[in-house]
């Protein structure tokens, strides 16, 4: 449903980022929260759309006065500009997309335990997709969007299901050689069982919402404005 229907509005959002900010308010951009069907690999573009919402639509959602509204818009516009500068800086060969190699040349990224996994998502993104990726970290993104993002990191084959081995892969990245493979499996099996899941059961996005949604997830990254 959202895959085909939202294409035009996505372009509108994008032009609003990069071009005139003021015009954006006249355009009725209503983007539904990504339904779970978005998580299949065919609708990656629609998926990125749903993630792009916090950056672009917040001014529209804000029920405050016009003055307040324009302030927020300016800040968002500033953030997009900053992100664009950053993107150009990272894209050293100027190809219009960032490669895993370029990103791993940032030492802080290279030492991150999940860097290899994230590179699978980040490799070859253009600017629009780059912003969409980062928008899950916007302070204005909803809890649901953040959970969906985490789900996507787990769901390596993008089939909307997270299996035992998916979780084990992430756990392996996080613990490295400091827990043996056998012990890792034991730990995960036990923890899953205690939460009422079997080893061979798969977790959907609703399970993630249930497990992670109770207490707030802190996943906010401020875009530095120079």
């Amino acid at each position, binding site marked *: 449903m959202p895959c085909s229907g939202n294409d035009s509005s996505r372009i509108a959002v994008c032009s609003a980022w990069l071009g005139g900010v003021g015009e954006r308010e006249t355009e009725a951009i209503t983007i539904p929260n990504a339904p779970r069907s978005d998580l299949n690999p065919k609708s990656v573009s629609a998926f990125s759309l749903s993630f792009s919402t916090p950056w672009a639509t917040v001014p529209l959602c804000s029920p405050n006065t016009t003055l307040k509204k324009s302030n927020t818009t300016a800040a968002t516009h500033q953030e997009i500009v900053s992100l664009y500068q950053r993107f150009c800086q990272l894209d050293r060969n100027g190809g219009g997309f960032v490669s895993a190699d370029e990103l791993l040349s940032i030492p802080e990224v290279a030492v991150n335990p*999940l860097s290899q996994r994230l590179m699978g998502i980040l490799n070859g993104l253009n600017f629009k997709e780059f912003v969409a990726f980062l928008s899950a970290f916007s302070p204005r993104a909803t809890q649901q969007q953040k959970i969906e993002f985490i789900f996507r990191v787990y769901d390596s084959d993008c089939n909307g299901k997270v299996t035992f081995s998916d979780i084990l892969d992430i756990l392996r990245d996080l613990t490295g050689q400091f827990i043996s493979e056998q012990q890792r499996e034991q730990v995960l099996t036990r923890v899953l069982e205690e939460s009422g899941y079997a080893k061979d059961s798969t977790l959907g996005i609703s399970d993630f919402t249930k497990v992670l949604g109770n207490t707030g997830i802190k996943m906010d990254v401020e875009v530095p404005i120079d």
Partner: protein
Amino acid sequence: MSITSTGKFKTSSSELDLDRPNIEDYLPSGTSIQPEPIGKLCLRDLLDISPTLTEAAGAIVDDSFTRCFKSNPPEPWNWNIYLFPLWCFGVVVRYFILFPVRVIVLTIGWIIFLSSYIPVHILLKGHDKLRKKIERFLVELICTFFVASWTGVVKYHGPRPSMRPNQVFVANHTSMIDFIILEQMTAFAVIMQKHAGWVGLLQSTILESVGCIWFNRTESKDREIVAKKLRDHVQAADNPLLIFPEGTCVNNHYTVMFKKGAFELGCSVCPVAIKYNKIFVDAFWNSRKQSFTKHLLQLMTSWAVVCDVWYLEPQNLRPGETPIEFAERVRDIISARAGLKKVPWDGYLKHSRPSPKHRERKQQSFAEMVLRRLEER
């Protein structure tokens, strides 16, 4: 050492093992710094990877390492009807009057220098002491011409370096012009990366005479040879030695890790802080983006290069202090004086990947947390 990430970069572990042990202290809050959650391990604890993701995204959006090597474009000030003609006038003056004059000055400098250097070098073969003295004077002279060719307005603070044995000067590094600015006052012997082109030619011919030592960053064999030459030079009561312990040009807003080599020679270390005023031109040499010739041309077409140089109090290794701690202390002094921010990174990471040790430390702390809380009931 475990398997490192693939790619064209190779991790030179022997070198990066010298990284600061306290790298986490500098980094923004992350998993390792957050207060440890307590209680029994539950599924949520394993599934919630948000701290690690936040760290990664934070570094992608902005990171301290890339900031060190970013040339900040000057704020545009001329886009207004009154200032724009003024700016145009300035361009004409800078490119069509100042620049040719500077080229002439530099040419005269080279003529004077070469016409005296070559005869001195050939004729005074027998009188080594006298020859060295004159040659050093000439090197100082040509450096003065260089500084004049960008109208260098350099303020030197503190006592001038003296010719004593057992001392080494260390300075922060922004561009090769640091060397020229310091050299015009004192004929330092310097340790530098071997360059290609005309700079390389100067290095291997003229600057040899002031006792400069060249090396190739990528050759690990060079490192031992340089270390030995360093020790020999320091012990001889010759001209003072200058080292840029960062090993790479930083944009003069930050300091990267100081290599410990200069700090384990067992002699006193005299810090020199250099701060450029970016009012007319950014003196940072971004060697990835431009050649040194281009960098010099940029300086020669600007109004002036304004900079402050501070010769600071000599420091000695304190009892019980490791060379790494000593290096860090000297870095503190220089950063404080020049108003630079410190980052924990090794400047050589421009050319290589960080050691897997840092990642392993994060993994270890997570693994320990998991195992400990698994036991809790």
